[in-house]
Structure formats: structure tokens, C-alpha cells
């Protein structure tokens, strides 16, 4: 049943936000602390547990997968209700932060990928089912 997956996702979502609120109260922040992250970790662990038990049929997975695939559309909708007019007043901040962040990260990637031992290689005809279209 597809609703089992969605209900599982909903339970993790609510529980994560609740724990995030509790954590926030515990450390004295008037905010939800990492609720979404906690919910994600719960969902990952539950998926592993249920898969191990064989209690995760395709339909149940689809109940979560649909919402995962809705991620970009929801982000597009989120972008459409931001206060862009106000943001543009601080224009150079966004541009400079982004350029500086990407530049610094590219440097670190260049260093890390050349350091240490790299014994990984591509197996012939590796899983190419992953498509960038999944992202949209």
C-alpha cells in the first residue's frame, strides 16, 4: 500500500520535528534544532531495518519516492514565494559568497583528489540508470 510509505515518511517528519523542538528547548535555543536532519536519519535507519525484515515492498517505497521526486518542484515553488525584491538590495553578498565558496571548494577538491591512495576505478558498464532527469 502506497499510503504506508507516505505515512512512514509523515511519522518520521513529525517525530524529527518534535525531537528537534525538544533538542532546541534542551540547549536553550528558541528554535527547532536539526529536526529535518533527525527525520532524515530516522527514515534512513527505518528503511534499512524494514528492508532487512523484508517489510518494504515496492508500493511502500513509492509512497516515499513520490515525495522525494517532488523535491525540486517544491523548491521551485519555494523560490517563487521568496522576498526577492528585498534580497536584490544585498546583491553582491550572494554573488561574492557563492563565487568564493565554489572557488575555495574547488581548490580543496583538487588537493583531496590528488592526496592519498586512489584505488577506485569504473567497472565496465556500470549502473547508468541514474539519470540527471531524476533531479527535476
Amino acid at each position, binding site marked *: 500500500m502506497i499510503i504506508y510509505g507516505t505515512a512512514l515518511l509523515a511519522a518520521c517528519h513529525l517525530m524529527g520535528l518534535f525531537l528537534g523542538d525538544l533538542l532546541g528547548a534542551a540547549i536553550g535555543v528558541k*528554535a*527547532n534544532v536539526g529536526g529535518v536532519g533527525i527525520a532524515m536519519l530516522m527514515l534512513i535507519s527505518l528503511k534499512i531495518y524494514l528492508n532487512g525484515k523484508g517489510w518494504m515492498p515496492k508500493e511502500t517505497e513509492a509512497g*516515499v519516492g513520490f515525495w522525494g521526486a517532488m523535491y525540486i518542484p517544491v523548491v*521551485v515553488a519555494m523560490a517563487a514565494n521568496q522576498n526577492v525584491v528585498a534580497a536584490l538590495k544585498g546583491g553582491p553578498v550572494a554573488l*561574492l*559568497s557563492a563565487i*568564493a565558496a565554489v572557488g575555495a571548494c*574547488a581548490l580543496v577538491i583538487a588537493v583531496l583528489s590528488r592526496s592519498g591512495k586512489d584505488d*577506485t576505478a569504473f567497472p565496465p558498464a556500470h549502473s547508468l540508470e541514474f539519470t540527471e532527469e531524476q533531479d527535476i
Partner: protein
Amino acid sequence: MLEMLNKILIQNGLVTAFACVGVSIWLAGVLSRRLTFGHVHGSAIAIVIGLALAYFGGSVTHGQKGLADFPLLAGIGLMGGAMFRDFAIVATAFEVQASEARKAGMIGIVSLLLGTLIPFVIGALIARAFGYTDAVSMTTIGAGAVTYIVGPITGAAIGASSDVMALSIATGLIKAIIVMVGTPFAAKFMGLKTPRSAMIFGGLAGTVSGVSAGLAATDRRLVPYGALVATFHTGLGCLLGPSVLYLAVKAIVG
């Protein structure tokens, strides 16, 4: 006639939003293929369209909520609001294969942590240099430099203002676009040719859309390895942003 249609669209706001966002994403896909020949990812163009429409909505209605300030498009506010946003984000955790993730090993974790810390520190410092001196704004803009999801989620959790949130999304978005477009050109410099280097890239470069599009444009085989690590990126950022990183910034700037 027109009034009846108007009434239906307003009464079914969320459904109207689904249709409108669908059309925007389709349009973005067409623009991506026709204008940029797939170099700029459709999702990036869709988000740019969203931000542009938000700018249009904001300048016409003088409201705070972009396009959602039009009564006809109030459903966009619900679809892009906190509830749906967090729900969809949590759902993406399901795409993480724990067995595969283990193969990413230590270097994946190290690059993930660096990929959260480095952009955050740079973003927060630049925000401060431009007069955003309070801990909440610095954290939100710094988190936006991690990814355009971590920014607003962090901002929402610690109570940032809407304009700072938009700024943080803009930062993450510009970063994602630079990663998408720039990766193929910088691939040689970054040593992007093995699964291990793709995983390092996934951890450090951030956004899933940026990483998957950037890697696909470089070498199709790199994509799953990079995206695998990158899917942890938003989760880690959402976990650290409003908690450890916010508290650290608060402790430093007071």
C-alpha cells in the same frame, strides 16, 4: 465565465500551484535543451524562473511572499511553504543507499564536513563584511552558501527575516549554477576522473542538482558516486546549520 474560472483556481489553490509549477518546470526543461543545449540544468532554470516570478510578484503587489501574494497563486505559498518543503526534503533521504554510502568511506565524510564548513564560514564572513552582523543573518547566509536548501531551512529554524532567507537562497542558487556550468571546465584541475574523486566532489561541491548536472556534463559515469555523497549534504547541513554552526556563530559574534 472568467469569474467562474477565477473562483475555481482560487478555491483549489494547491492544485493550481501544482499545475503552474509543472508548466514552469516544463518550460525550464525546454529552455535548458534549446537555449543551453543541456549545459544549464533544467532545475536551475526552473528555480531562476521561480525567483524571477517572485521578483515580479513582489514588485507588483509590494508584498513579502513573492508570487504567493497574488490571490490566484496563493497555493504556491502552501506548496513552497515549510510543511511541503520539509516533507520533500525528508523523503529524499530515502534515495541514500547505506551499503553504497559505506563505500564512500572516510574521504567522503571528510569532504562532506569540509563541504559544509568551508562554504559556511566564507558565506558568513562575507555576510558580515556587507553589514549582516547579527548571528541569525550570518548563519542563514553562510548556510545558503552550503546549499540553497540548507539556507532557508536553517533560516526558518532560527527565525531569519524573509529578505535574508531570499538572499541565502540566491547564494545557494548562484553556487549551484556555477557548479553545473563550471564543473566540465574545471574537471581536469579538480582531478575528476575516478569514483573516489567524484565522491570528494559530491561532498565538497554541495547541491544534488549542481553535482549531478556538473558530473553528467563531465563524465556520465561519475554521476552516481558524486550524487550519493551529495545527497547527504543537505541532511548534514540541515542538522548542523541551525544547531552547532548557529551556536558557534552566536558564541563568536554574541
